[in-house]
């Protein structure tokens, strides 16, 4: 649940946590460097970005048509399609399905959409034993928290934190040796894979043409979650469509470098239906939950629809100087960083999401790094405008802007007021009385010039000599 009032609290917590910031800095630096190396050796990188943007734009141009075709092809392939209007409906569909099939144990592979709909608490409440099987997600689940990065969920924890966590929650002897910790997790997870009745995954791409969906991963845990249990449930936001599997390579080509700085992801699972006759692998039943949760409205909003082109690679987080200071939890929701700052008000409403678009210096690095060419800074500005115009900003700021607007079209009055301000600044210790104490606590304030450029220029020889 998003708690906008807590934004500043979350930020203060994050800034106090030196360990967190060191970990975030180190991991994002590495991801940025590795990505840049790969981009440098891909001469057609910019063309790829344009191409995948175009593909996504094409398939979402008429989303209803694309979704109808996709659904029909999925059904023909034996996939059970469920439509969920919102988060509550999606949770209910999955909980009901589990009850109907007498499921006791569920293994999950990493899915941000399940974080968005807060699925895990609902499964636990229904008495379903649920295990995250992505290593990072597993750690975060043991910690009882939520992921702090789109692709590196446990980024906020060091190996020492994880060692202590495993000692406490898994009853093992303390170790901070990453390899030993990994082996413990592997062993525990293996037992869960073999005894689970249902596997739940997200979806990276859904191919309209073939009625198949794609799950990308590096740990093979998604592969095991999908192929071992008898029932597989996948959940996707309705924007995950791509035209066809033949377009998939382009997306894969941009995704892996952007996400983890890898040339290619380790595993690409393509699910085109349940186990076939004479085959011994794969689930007997495949269910696909297609989630709206506000997406249709965003797609209908021409100026912001491309925010749904996001493939959740996290490249904008890694390069973002704000994210690198505060980490993912400061945003207070499943999606964080620059793209999160646009999605938070879009999914939760302008009032609930009134701070997120302002948590950016608008430096623009996110757009440069976005493999999908989503113009994040532009969308942040659009959202800021909507938030301000719906009266969700501070009254003093609204009044101040009205006054500024009135003055800025009246140059003489404007000069008089700014001249007055310069005098006032010289008379009183402005550093202490400055209306924004946060700014001056660690920064000396610039001094307003008593005359200003205009007067100085008018008086100078420069003007006389130059003539007009």
């Amino acid at each position, binding site marked *: 649940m998003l708690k906008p009032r807590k934004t500043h609290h979350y930020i203060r917590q994050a800034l106090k946590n030196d360990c967190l910031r060191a970990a975030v800095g180190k991991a994002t630096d590495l991801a940025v460097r590795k990505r840049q190396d790969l981009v440098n050796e891909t001469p057609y990188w910019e063309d790829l970005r344009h191409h995948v943007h175009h593909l996504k734009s094409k398939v979402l141009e008429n989303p209803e048509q694309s979704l109808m075709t996709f659904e029909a092809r999925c059904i023909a392939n034996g996939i059970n399609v469920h439509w969920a209007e919102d988060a509550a409906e999606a949770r209910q569909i999955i909980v009901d399905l589990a009850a109907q099939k007498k499921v006791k144990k569920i293994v999950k592979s990493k899915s941000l959409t399940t974080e968005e709909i807060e699925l895990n608490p609902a499964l636990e409440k229904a008495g379903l034993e649920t295990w995250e099987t992505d290593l990072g997600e597993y750690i975060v689940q043991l910690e009882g928290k939520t992921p702090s990065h789109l692709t590196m969920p446990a980024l906020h924890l060091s190996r020492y934190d994880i060692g202590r966590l495993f000692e406490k929650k898994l009853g093992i002897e303390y170790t901070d040796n990453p390899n030993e910790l990994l082996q413990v997790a592997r062993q525990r997870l293996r037992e869960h894979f073999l005894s689970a009745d249902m596997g739940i995954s997200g979806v990276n791409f859904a191919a309209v043409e073939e009625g198949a969906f794609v799950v990308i991963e590096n740990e093979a845990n998604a592969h095991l979650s999908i192929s071992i249990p008898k029932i597989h449930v996948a959940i996707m936001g309705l924007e995950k469509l791509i035209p066809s599997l033949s377009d998939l390579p382009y997306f894969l080509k941009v995704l892996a470098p952007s996400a983890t700085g890898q040339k290619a992801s380790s595993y690409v699972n393509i699910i085109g239906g349940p186990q076939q006759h004479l085959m011994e692998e794969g689930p007997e039943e495949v269910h696909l939950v297609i989630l709206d949760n506000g997406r249709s409205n965003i797609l209908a909003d021409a100026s912001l629809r491309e925010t749904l082109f996001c493939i959740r690679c996290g490249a904008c987080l890694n390069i973002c100087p704000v994210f690198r200071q505060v980490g993912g939890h400061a945003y207070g929701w499943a999606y964080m960083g620059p793209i999160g700052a646009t999605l938070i008000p879009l999914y939760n409403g302008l009032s609930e999401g009134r701070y997120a678009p302002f948590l950016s210096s608008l430096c623009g690095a996110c757009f440069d790094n976005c493999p999908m060419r989503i113009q994040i800074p532009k969308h942040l500005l659009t959202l800021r405008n909507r938030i301000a115009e719906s009266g969700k900003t501070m009254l003093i700021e609204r009044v101040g802007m009205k006054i500024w607007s009135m003055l800025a079209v009246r140059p003489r009055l404007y000069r008089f007021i700014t001249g007055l301000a310069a005098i006032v600044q010289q008379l009183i210790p402005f550093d202490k009385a400055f209306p924004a104490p946060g*700014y001056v606590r660690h920064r000396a304030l610039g001094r307003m010039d008593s005359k*200003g450029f205009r007067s100085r220029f008018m008086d100078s020889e*420069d003007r006389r000599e130059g003539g*007009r």
Partner: protein
Amino acid sequence: MTVSLFIPCLTEHLYPESGLAMVRILKHLGYKIDYVDNQTCCGQPAFNSGYRREMIPVAERFIRLFQDKELIVAPSGSCVAMIRVFYDQLALDPSLMPGLKALKERLFELTEFLVKRNHHDKLQGCFPHRVTYHDSCHLSRELGVRQQPRQLIQSIKEIDFVEMTPPDLCCGFGGTFSYKFSDVSVEMVKRKCESIEATGAEYCIGADSSCLMNIEGYLRKHGMKAKTLHIAELLSRSLDLEKGAA
């Protein structure tokens, strides 16, 4: 040729010296100078904070004031980007569109202008100090101006130019961001200042007064050695143009 000056708010009210330095450089290169009187603001602070309704009249006024000028030069990437890139996002009076188009073609950021016109050969002054350069976000990312300031700096004799790493990391100012999320902003400028200090530079050169104000504020408050210097002032000082000034 006549160059009309577009003087951003911070240059007008806090750093007139960088505006005057720009005037001296342009005059040194033989341009006539025209000051468009009654200019106020391009509207960026309000735009970035979401107040388009309030800033549209200000933007429209700006277009009317400058649309007929032959050449317009400003000592700021951020303010030039506002007009060249961000005015397109506004629902402006349609009758102003031809004026905006004309304005966009004739408006330049100072370093972009100097290099585009091949003036760097005539700006080879002398500045025997170690300097580093901060890429301001709008100048580098929105306008794509990265090489030009470096070219100008490196043309100066006896200058010891050292890049900071990374030079294009945001300084954390971001207008109202710097007080809305001041704690985050301070951490960002801290990192910027540490990377400046690591170069051992005496001066951090920049082409935007907003970044320089933020950086200078932190450096001064924390007693750090480096000083900030606008690139217009660097060029003017290296050519020793101050003497001729009033």
